[in-house]
């Protein structure tokens, strides 16, 4: 687009002129010299990190369950039964062997938007979780974890880090992929600052933490 290129050149020229004449530009640090004295790595032990993560999830009104690799399928069954759910749509990369029997499963890539909108719930794993903020980070699966009313996320203990910088370091290889940071269920406080769950995303967030 010719017009766009003109605007591009004009904007870049204005920036260059501004930065040549403005003394503020000269005093700015070069990128590697920017001081990062904030906390990068955790000083907490594993148990404290796990407890912090669970506490923060509780504060966000998420329902939290614990399991080990052998009892994960059972735990998923328990969570679904507690909501009278008989079926769910599952992320494509979620292991078949972790899904309990006696339910109807459908894979995300085989589902339409309408099916996602009307299903009882969605199940997916995560890439990293942050204890300090109670955040779960998802790679892809954006529609699956958004449209259904209930989202059940399986988090392995070794996926939980304490600080935000630790999580960002783990995400570095996937930084150009669609990523979603989830901290509790959808919420708003736009009407008189009253916190309400579930405006547009899932109204209920269930988390199963799988301990080694």
């Amino acid at each position: 687009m010719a017009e766009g290129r003109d605007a591009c050149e004009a904007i870049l020229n204005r920036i260059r002129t501004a930065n040549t004449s403005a003394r503020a530009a000269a005093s700015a640090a070069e990128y590697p010299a920017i001081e990062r004295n904030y906390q990068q790595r955790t000083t907490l032990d594993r148990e404290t990190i796990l407890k912090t993560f669970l506490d923060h999830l509780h504060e966000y009104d998420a329902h939290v369950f614990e399991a080990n690799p052998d009892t994960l399928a059972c735990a998923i069954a328990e969570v679904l039964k507690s909501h009278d759910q008989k079926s769910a749509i599952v992320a494509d990369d979620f292991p078949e062997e972790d899904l309990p029997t006696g339910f109807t499963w459908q894979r995300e890539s085989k589902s339409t938007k309408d099916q996602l909108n009307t299903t009882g719930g969605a199940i997916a794993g995560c890439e990293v979780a942050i204890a300090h903020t109670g955040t779960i980070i998802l790679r892809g699966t954006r529609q699956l974890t958004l449209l259904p009313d209930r989202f059940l996320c399986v988090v392995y203990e070794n996926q939980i880090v304490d600080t935000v910088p630790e999580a960002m370091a783990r995400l570095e290889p996937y930084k150009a992929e669609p990523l979603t940071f989830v901290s509790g269920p959808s919420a708003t406080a736009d009407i008189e600052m009253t916190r309400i769950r579930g405006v547009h995303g899932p109204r209920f967030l269930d988390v199963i933490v799988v301990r080694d």
Partner: protein
Amino acid sequence: MTIRVGEAAEAPSFQKAAFKLLDDAQLRKNVRHATDVISGKRAIVVKEQQDWQQLRATASAIKQHTLAHLDEYLLKFEAACTAAGGHVHWASDADEANRIIVDLVKQYGGKEVIKVKTMTSDEIGLNKAFEANGIHPHETDLADMIVQLGHDKPSHIVAPALHRNRQQVREIFMREMGLSELTDEPQDLTNAARQYLREKFLKVKIGFSGANYLLADTGGVCVVESEGNGRMCVTLPDILITLAGIEKIIPSFRDLEVFLQLLPRSATGERMNPYNSLWTGVHKGEGPQHFHVVLLDNGRTRILADPEARQTLHCIRCGACLNTCPVYRQTGGHAYGSIYSGPIGAIVTPQLFDMEHSQSLPYASSLCGACYEVCPVKINIPEVLIHLRGRIVREQQSGANIEAIGMKAMARVFSSGRRLEAAQRLGRLGQWPFVSEGWIKHLPGMLGNWTAVRDMRPLPKQSFRSWWREHEKEKKEGADG
């Protein structure tokens, strides 16, 4: 280049607008309640983040660095975004940006657009441009929706409808959604919004968003929100158009570790807001398959050229300065006559917009410094306010402005004790028609600007100088006698 900031062109001066709003008890109550709640929550979570000051310092350094290399980072972003399948457009001003966006929507044959909260689109008046071209924009943020359906204007950067209470929201929803039954419970009102918008999210094929951050290294975009409407708009439609001011760029993905810690705690008093969405170009089978980003200048390079004021461009739009500002807390956002309100609005608006139309805003502050203290990216707002006041005075002095002439005369009077005494004598004689019960409540002409907002004491019967002279004389006579 036409610079437009919302309705600021027609807006009255801050003092005039604020005077009327101070009478609205309901609005003041709503604003005070909302800002108290957010400020209280913010204080708790900031205290818990023990490296807060270090995070602020790094954020400020990253912003300074980015602005100093803004041209390089924008080009880097463009290259990376294009390589990932996105399209980058550049717009010098509001009209150009509107034209690009409207043309794109037309090109894809869209009649409706779902929008996630973006202040930049309000800045350029995008909704008006859409409507003028037969395109219907749906605001999907609950507060923005209350403002849109209520044919109202936003009053806060983060919570645009905080001036409305639940009864008012109920009335708006019932009328505009055609509902015959609805309670004023926030849960019910929220459910009504959910149902109303769900169908649009599934059906409308063009999404529109702003950007909290543009990542130069990946060409990615990050949007931070709470409700999930943002995720809907950037995930479900087939086409996504994003508008971002050029100052929204940060050098790398890693820098998000700083800003994602500062923004939610400052904006809503949360450790992390419920949702952050990051996307880069297009991904087969995942999200929109056509992605356009419009990079907007609209006066930003002019701010960049002013060394004292360029820190204004550090702003991450958290709104913490509004919630803590004693002036904003009394007047609410509408008095600022622009979508950018509060202390940050008082410095952004006059710079983005022609100074002469918004020159009252740098005076809409007590200069108490609370805004600087809470700013997560360390913008010294009082310093910029004083700098802008200086610019306004210099601009006025260059013209034959009656106020400037008055000020010059004042300066002459105050520089000489003899002249001051003469003026005081005159003042004592002249003030009697205006004094009632020991106060002056109304002064005539331009002096009335002072008494319009505060009462003043009349000049005392005797000045200190004349009292001193008499006192010294008596002492001397006493000593002699």
